[in-house]
């Protein structure tokens, strides 16, 4: 049989699987040294920032979730926060609590999907979660049950699993009933042991170390001393803190030619957002079983090894499950007035501009809008994956260098098929660990229409 034509001076992974969207990895090698590592993003641009121009805030709020199905609630929520901050809304505590609940639904669904369905098969050497059912059927079914619960919360609070229209600028179209809320509360309590079991499974996995390097982390600072996913300030692991209004200088987006997604750096350095950033920056705030899990799992490797993002997501699922009963108890305190308190309010003004931010499952998401006489005249959105791309490439470079070094400088052309597959597996794991939302990262950024 004829040898397949392989370019010996590169390693190429044509399509990273089990991630959202399309990306491919290219490692260029010169004189047996890694010269260049690229995470190419060939996604088709959809130009969302231009689509919202000339639309009402309500229309724009319907358009932007379509950027990404996996974090559609976060996109909607960030847009709502931006419009409300720009137009001077003050929403009630009940509206805020109901939004927290919908956001929790997305957090559970997205994390369960990523950690247990998309990433876990790597660690156990399976091509998919479906294939894992030969030996891990109970675990896969528990993961799917958690995922389904996340979806159920979103259906009840937002009207649909994906792109639900119920949460709007100023409030909710319809409030869930008390019995729907109580059912969510009791289901959350029931699922705690499943989440603990899955954390334990992830904790005891073997974590490859070839990609380790120190990371700078960034996440939103919750307004109280509780763990959480929303805030108007940004925490940075260098010890700095900044208001979200400074998002442009925190993210510094730029264009590179091998990617339709833009890139970010903080003070010239790649930085990391997402569950691993939040756990590193806010983990000490975790209480209850999630706090116990954090203390049991956390180690200094977490500041160097991006693969711990998967375990961080699992811990966040447990935090959310434990927090849901508290949120619901507070929501139903005055159940008679709940629907009035969450009703959509009218805009205090029709002109303004501001930024709103939430933690999407995969990291800090900024939406900025300018509104003039009721229509959007400018938009700028900065997406978590855009912020992580430089860090992903950095970790890919380190992993490729270390893995090739351990082969004692044998020319790459002489790599055996097994060695090649192993290198490719670890490189793919690095990308996947970040839970990249590739199509999400593509369409957004940098536009202020005059």
């Amino acid at each position, binding site marked *: 049989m004829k040898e397949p034509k392989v370019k010996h001076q590169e390693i190429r992974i044509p*399509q990273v*699987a*089990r991630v*959202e*969207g*399309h990306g491919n990895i290219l490692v260029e090698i010169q004189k047996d040294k890694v010269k260049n590592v690229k995470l*190419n*993003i*060939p*996604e*088709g*641009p*959809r*130009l*969302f*920032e*231009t*689509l919202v121009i*000339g*639309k009402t805030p309500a*229309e724009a709020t*319907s*358009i932007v*979730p*379509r*950027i*990404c*199905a996996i974090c*559609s609630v976060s996109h909607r929520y960030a847009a709502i926060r931006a419009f409300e901050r720009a137009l001077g809304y003050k929403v009630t505590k009940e509206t805020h609590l109901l939004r927290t609940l919908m956001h929790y639904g997305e957090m559970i*669904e997205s994390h369960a*999907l990523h950690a247990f*369905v998309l990433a876990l*098969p790597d660690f156990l050497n399976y*091509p*998919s*979660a*479906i*294939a894992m*059912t030969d030996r891990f059927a109970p675990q896969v079914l528990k993961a*799917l*049950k958690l*995922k*389904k619960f996340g*979806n159920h919360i979103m259906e009840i609070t937002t*009207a649909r*699993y*994906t792109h639900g*229209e119920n949460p709007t600028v100023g409030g*909710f*179209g*319809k409030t869930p009933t008390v019995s729907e809320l109580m059912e969510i509360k009791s289901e959350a309590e029931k699922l705690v042991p499943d989440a603990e079991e899955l954390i334990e499974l992830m904790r005891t996995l073997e974590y490859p170390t070839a990609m380790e390097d120190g990371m700078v982390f960034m996440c939103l600072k919750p307004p109280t001393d509780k763990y959480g996913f929303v805030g108007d300030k940004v925490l940075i692991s260098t010890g700095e803190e900044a208001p979200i209004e400074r998002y442009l200088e925190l993210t510094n987006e730029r*264009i590179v*030619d091998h990617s*339709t997604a833009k890139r970010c750096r903080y003070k010239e350095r790649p930085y990391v957002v997402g569950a691993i950033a939040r756990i590193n920056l806010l983990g000490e705030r975790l209480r209850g079983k999630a706090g116990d899990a954090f203390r049991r799992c956390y180690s200094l490797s977490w500041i160097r090894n991006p693969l711990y993002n998967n375990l961080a997501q699992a811990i966040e699922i447990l935090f959310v499950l434990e927090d849901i009963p508290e949120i619901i108890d507070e929501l139903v305190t005055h159940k008679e007035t709940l629907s009035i308190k969450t009703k959509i309010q009218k805009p205090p003004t029709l002109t303004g501009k501001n930024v709103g931010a939430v933690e999407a499952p995969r990291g800090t998401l900024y939406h900025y809008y300018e509104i003039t006489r009721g229509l959007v005249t400018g938009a700028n959105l900065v997406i978590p994956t855009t912020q992580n791309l430089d860090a992903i490439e950095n970790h890919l470079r380190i992993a490729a260098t270390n893995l090739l070094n351990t082969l004692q400088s044998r020319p790459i052309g002489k790599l055996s098929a097994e060695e090649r597959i192993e290198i490719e597996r670890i490189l*793919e794991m690095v990308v996947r660990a970040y839970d990249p939302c590739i*199509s*999400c990262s593509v*369409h957004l*950024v940098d536009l202020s*229409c005059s």
Partner: protein
Amino acid sequence: MSKLKVAFYNLSGCSGCLLSIINCEDSLLDIFNAANVVSFLMAQSNNREEEQDLAFLDGSVTTDEQEEFLLHLRPRTKKVVALGTCACYGGVQAMENAKGTFERRFEKVYGKTPFTIVKAFESKPVDAVIPVDYYIPGCPIDGDLFLYNYARLLKELPVDMPKTPVCRECKWQENECLLLKNQLCLGPVTAGGCKARCPSHNLPCIGCFGPADEANLTSEFNLLKEKGYNFAEIERKLRLFGGTKFINSFRELWKSPAAKNQKTQLRKG
């Protein structure tokens, strides 16, 4: 009987339709077991590109690479199913189509930086590139409707989607009509299948399932005009998810004498 070979692909979109399949948690194992899933990049890594019976396509076509992919896909695939409003009509990213603004909008986002990885163009539905056998719209698709049609397709039966608009499902929910409450609702012209979720939450239909087969666009247009909405507002709503299909029909209306009157009035106003 051997299992059909099935593939799931994602073009330019939010992946919401493929996610809606993964969201069928109770049936997920059945979806994979009932067929031979040869390609599903988002869900598995052991994918193979070969002759297949069914290909589901999520997303619209926005790059030369995707066009090429489709042209290679069609000859090796027996039936092609457009999954979701992007694949069926172009999706939200097609809302500015036929305005000739793509180049300018592209430059707004990416500047003048030469951008070599792909050649991008105005978003178009799958059937603008290759023949499509079946359409399952929705933004995203409805999981139940997908399962029903997936089962039909695996039995080599045609897709069966609701032909009537959202209004019919809305009546079944016994909702008070939002148009009567003076809200700009697209229920009368939008394909059903969503179980009238938005109107059931006191929110007007935004048209995310795309145009209904039995939509009376003229009547909706005149009704909205009577309610005092101006042309720009109506057009904007219809463009949100209607892609080229709504826009073309709307153009015809725009040319009608009634519309011309309105245009003149607006200009005067």
